[in-house]
């Protein structure tokens, strides 16, 4: 279901968590709220869920104003960073919780739980306690628990934040696949731009209590609206007073009239990529990123003098 956040403001004491935030999450989309810690993304998610109340503004789910509605009435699924598993219940009981609260017939509960256990690949662990599961399994259980009640919207608060890097990648692929099958409108909070680009179809970039830009992953990466968005979505170099992506910078040993002269201070080999650290005439530091093949061909060494160019068409902000 579509979510509308309209002019929401929220403060905790002197700390302003959200300032006049408006956001539309289209039905069936997977939207990431991306931003550094303290940018207000979790607060926004918790306000959509009803776990926090906004100081002003309103929240609509499927067109209905739910600003005054309690969490229980919103029919949402919420997944917490640290799983929030019911420690004294088995995996099976955890998943069945929402259905039992709704007093569904036993046979129906069992059927739905079995279906979800299979979906999240925990059938073998059904009778275990959460503390016997790995972090990734616990989070899959939490997802199954949230999905059991067929929520209108699924809200995920840094769901992979507490997991190891490889488990995180696997789980986010899995989440994307799940979303493609189930089409539940999903909002995901993350501070990891790679995760947002990988999973989401829409990214809302947040900074200091406000949304800076909303767009597809390519939009926000290639056409950042602000310097902050550009910097947050990937590495940047400042050349000639402009912000550019290091991989858009070309480096050549041959002088060219439209290129800037620079001294190579360091060459870092990062597997497939090679990062060239440069010192520009003003003493400014900049970076260029090349493929290994490019770097080998150029044969650049520290202390070399090179000529640096960035594409004229590059959308670079003058800051």
């Amino acid at each position, binding site marked *: 279901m579509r979510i509308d956040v309209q002019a929401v403001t929220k403060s905790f004491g002197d700390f302003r968590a959200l300032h006049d935030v408006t956001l539309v999450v289209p039905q069936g989309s997977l939207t990431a709220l991306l931003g550094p810690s303290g940018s207000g993304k979790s607060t926004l998610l918790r306000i959509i*869920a009803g*776990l926090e109340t906004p100081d002003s503004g309103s929240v609509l789910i499927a067109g209905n104003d739910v600003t005054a509605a*309690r*969490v*229980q009435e919103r*029919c*949402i*699924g*919420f997944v*917490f960073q*640290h799983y*929030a*598993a*019911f*420690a*004294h219940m088995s995996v099976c009981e955890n998943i069945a*919780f*929402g259905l039992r*609260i*709704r007093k569904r017939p036993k046979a129906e509960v069992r059927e739905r739980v079995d279906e979800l256990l299979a979906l999240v690949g925990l059938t073998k662990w059904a009778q275990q306690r959460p503390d016997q599961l790995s972090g990734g399994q616990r989070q899959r259980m*939490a997802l199954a*628990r*949230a999905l*059991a*009640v067929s929520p209108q919207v699924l809200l995920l608060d840094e769901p992979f934040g507490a997991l190891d890097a490889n488990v995180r990648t696997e789980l986010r692929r899995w989440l994307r696949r799940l979303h493609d099958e189930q089409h539940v409108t999903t909002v995901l909070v993350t501070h990891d731009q790679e995760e947002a680009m990988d999973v989401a179809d829409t990214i809302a970039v947040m900074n200091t209590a406000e949304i800076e830009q909303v767009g597809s992953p390519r939009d926000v990466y290639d056409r950042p609206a602000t310097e902050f968005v550009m910097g947050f979505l990937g590495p940047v170099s400042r050349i000639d007073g402009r912000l550019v992506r290091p991989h858009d910078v070309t480096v050549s040993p041959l002088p060219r009239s439209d290129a800037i002269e620079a001294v190579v201070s360091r060459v870092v080999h990062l597997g497939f990529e090679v990062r060239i650290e440069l010192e520009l005439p003003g003493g400014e530091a900049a970076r260029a990123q090349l493929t290994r093949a490019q770097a080998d061909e150029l044969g650049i060494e520290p202390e070399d003098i090179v000529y640096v160019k960035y594409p004229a068409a590059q959308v670079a902000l003058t800051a």
Partner: protein
Amino acid sequence: MRISRRATLSLRALALLYLTLLLLLPLAVVFARTFEHGLAVAWTWMTTPAAISAFWLTVLVAVIAVPLNTIFGVGCALVLVRGRGRGRPLLDALLDLPFLVSPVMVGLSLILVYGEQGWFGKWFVSQGISIIYAVPGIVIATIFVSLPFVVREVAPVLIEVGDTQEQAAATLGASSWQTFWRVTLPSIRWGVAYGVVLTTARALGEIGAVLVVSSNVAGSTLTLPLLVYQRSSQIGAQSITSAYAAATELAVMSLVVLLAMTLLGPRRREAQ
């Protein structure tokens, strides 16, 4: 801090000696004296009408005071840890009052409020209900002195467990009441159980506050500790033997509580 093996051994010996002189030896003497004329004689003393009445009164007081303080304690812990009200620091301070004031003072203040000349006492007397120098006074005094145990055991567990499980329950549609029974209470159960054990121990053993509000009549308002106190301060071999028998009964009850504590101890730590 590193302690040498020798130092450890002498520290242990010292602790053991201390416990033996102050605790084990007196307890052993009580047991020995109780049973010195044989089991049958001891049993006779334990089953005198006064002793039986004291035993049942002690049980009755515990059975009323412990559940009330458990409900009140869990409720207070929830208010203290999960609440948002401004009165919390005040409540927090008030809850320690029973630990801080002398039980004798508790008894005295109950007389001032509920005694025949007390604020509420006059009304109760007009209704034909006597509180002071009767069983209700003993119950109230016991409730008061054993009040903080459950709160003080449960509050840290609530803090430790955190509120995300409760939030998760709410997002899944559970009302506050359902959340309390299905999520909160199971996660604090060992803390509650330990608080109950401590409350029971105190309720069984309390003497100071109870002494002041009891009429100290054997067979009606004497609890086991009061019976021990009364008989041990009377002169005569029979009284002393009666005191020993009652003390042994009390000690056995305490040992049961101690056993419960020992069994619960590890689970409680595990839960935290």
